[in-house]
């Protein structure tokens, strides 16, 4: 690996697709507007021109076909990368994701691989309303044969997408719409990030902060402020939920005794509940205060962008909650 370059999250994803399309002729990409138009978020821009319409192409508005067809193509030995235009539409292809992609190997005895990647842009931004703004990873905690990846940086976006495409198991790859324009360093040359290994963004001994996707950045920014106030946060981005790197989190909680969990999407039924239960089960004695959930409001996302802004916690809200946690139970 030589040096670093700066790429947007979008460009990093695109580079991953290009490299894997070049490397492996079994790989193909399909989705609504994913062909010549380049995807409504621009991730596949130019790819049809580069690889031809039989490698990168549009689909009808048929989400069950997009995912289920991807499963079928994977069963036949191809390595499809399919795109849902919005992660919300995973709910249309839920049977295909949960009952087909995730279970096919197990229920057919264990020998049959499903090397499928389902890319799906999630998150609250731009006034898209209740059916185009959901964060849905929590639906897949118990889809055991499925991997769920959620990159938070351009480097992870590239490295994790490449790993996902090479993985023999199906991967739900949740991109965050707010991050597409975010720029950051990406290693030159071949860059792979293994799925299911947490990334510790910052070390700190006072509070363990677990934050996914866009909220990892928000948490990291809060941590800067809090450091000024004498609170040292350890920021851990689990990079997804499956495989789940609980060990890194437990090791941190052992040192801090305090856990805050930050994510988009509602508090109730969100990602944090399961994680907190897992930590409390194993580290009850080590905890100095109740773990805290810092997440979306328990409601749906309105189109009104003023109101939309109220849905997810901002740096101030995250800082305030962590401050309270740092002081709790002393």
């Amino acid at each position, binding site marked *: 690996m030589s040096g670093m370059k700066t790429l947007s999250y979008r460009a990093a994803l695109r580079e991953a697709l290009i490299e894997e399309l070049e490397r492996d002729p079994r790989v193909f990409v399909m989705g609504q507007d994913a062909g010549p138009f380049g995807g409504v978020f621009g991730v596949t821009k130019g790819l049809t021109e580069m690889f031809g319409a039989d490698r990168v192409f549009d689909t009808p508005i048929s989400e069950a076909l997009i995912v289920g067809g991807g499963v079928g193509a994977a069963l036949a030995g191809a390595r499809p990368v399919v795109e849902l235009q919005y992660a919300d539409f995973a709910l249309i292809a839920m049977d295909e994701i949960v009952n087909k992609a995730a279970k096919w190997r197990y229920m057919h005895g264990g020998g049959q691989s499903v090397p499928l990647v389902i890319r799906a842009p999630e998150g609250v931004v731009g006034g898209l309303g209740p059916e185009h703004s959901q964060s849905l990873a929590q639906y897949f905690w118990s889809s055991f044969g499925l991997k769920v990846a959620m990159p938070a940086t351009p480097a992870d976006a590239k490295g994790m997408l490449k790993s996902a495409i090479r993985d023999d198991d199906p991967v739900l790859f949740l991109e965050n719409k707010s991050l597409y324009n975010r720029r950051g360093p990406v290693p030159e040359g071949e860059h792979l990030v293994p799925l299911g290994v947490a990334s510790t963004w910052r070390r700190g001994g006072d509070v363990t902060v677990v934050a996914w996707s866009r909220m990892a950045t928000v948490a990291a920014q809060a941590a800067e402020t809090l450091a000024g106030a004498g609170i040292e946060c350890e920021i851990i981005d689990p990079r997804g939920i499956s495989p789940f790197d609980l060990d890194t989190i437990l090791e941190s909680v052992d040192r801090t005794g305090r856990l805050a969990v930050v994510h988009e999407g509602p508090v109730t039924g969100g990602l944090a509940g399961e994680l907190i239960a897992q930590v409390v089960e194993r580290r009850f004695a080590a905890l100095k205060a109740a773990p805290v959930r810092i997440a979306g409001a328990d409601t749906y996302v309105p189109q009104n962008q003023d109101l939309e802004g*109220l849905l997810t916690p901002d740096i101030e809200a995250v800082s305030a909650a962590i401050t309270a946690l740092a002081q709790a139970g002393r």
Partner: protein
Amino acid sequence: MPPMTDEQLLHVYRIMERAILLEQAVLRLIEDGSARLLLHSGRGQEAIGTGVCAALRDDDMLFYSHRGLTQLLAKGMAPGPLLGDFLGRTSGATRGLGAGIVHAVDHSLGLMGSSGTLGGGFVLSAGAALGARRLGDDRVSVHIFGEGSANRGTFHEAANAAALWKLPMVWLCENNGLSVSVAHRDATSIEDVADRAGAYGMPSRIVDGQDVEAVYDAVAEAVARARAGDGPTLIEAKTLRFRGHYEGDPQTYRSKEDIAAAQQRDPVRIVAEKLAARGIAGDRLGAIRNEEAAAMEAAITQALAAPKPGPERIHEGLLAPRETAA
């Protein structure tokens, strides 16, 4: 079916002007920063919403599309609540949840709402027809949708059930040849969506979607059939999308010439010509346009003056209001 009366056609003209004025107003409000939203322009497709609604009773039920501004106005919605939504004011149809795509409901107008996940309307509209039958009334359920959406599996499930049960339902496909960037021929295995109806034993018809009378005729006939208990109909209106999929769409997938050619077949001009041919003086249309423009300005001023919702709004309306204890 009797042809449209002059009064009906004048009303259609009025609604079309209203829709165009409203869209223009919204574009202006976006530009000046008063409104932040994603608009899916219906420009070019005004003959459909107006033609459909001219054939409906107030209590007939409409599940409109994401490109549905004309549809809402034609079914009787006033611009005020729509502007309220666009501007995120409590005066909006959704009391401030706001909208690029307005999700208005008004039972007195038969406005049933719109599904943001495309294709949701197929099963909902079939279900509404089933509900009306259960209640023993003779309402007809209507759904307007794009040709791209017709490739959702819900089309199949609902079409089969509606034909099987002879539900009082009319489906109107706005085939503008595009779903976002994807051309109809690149997404759909046959040319005419109407030809899908035969697979269910459902009658169908193809009409010129730029011609409000053609749309009206087909819908009026289908509504009569539905109301008589003879089951659903699929109507395909061939139409043209004048603008991008959403405002800001670079439209890299079609040429300037294609766009210009499409814009030649303007449904408003076609109605105006029809009225002229019927001997209705141009100044009557001018008067309507002026009335509408004035009303629109007033509605905009009013909407801008309406309060914005407080933060509590996001938690309201999730559940039915608690019944007061007996």
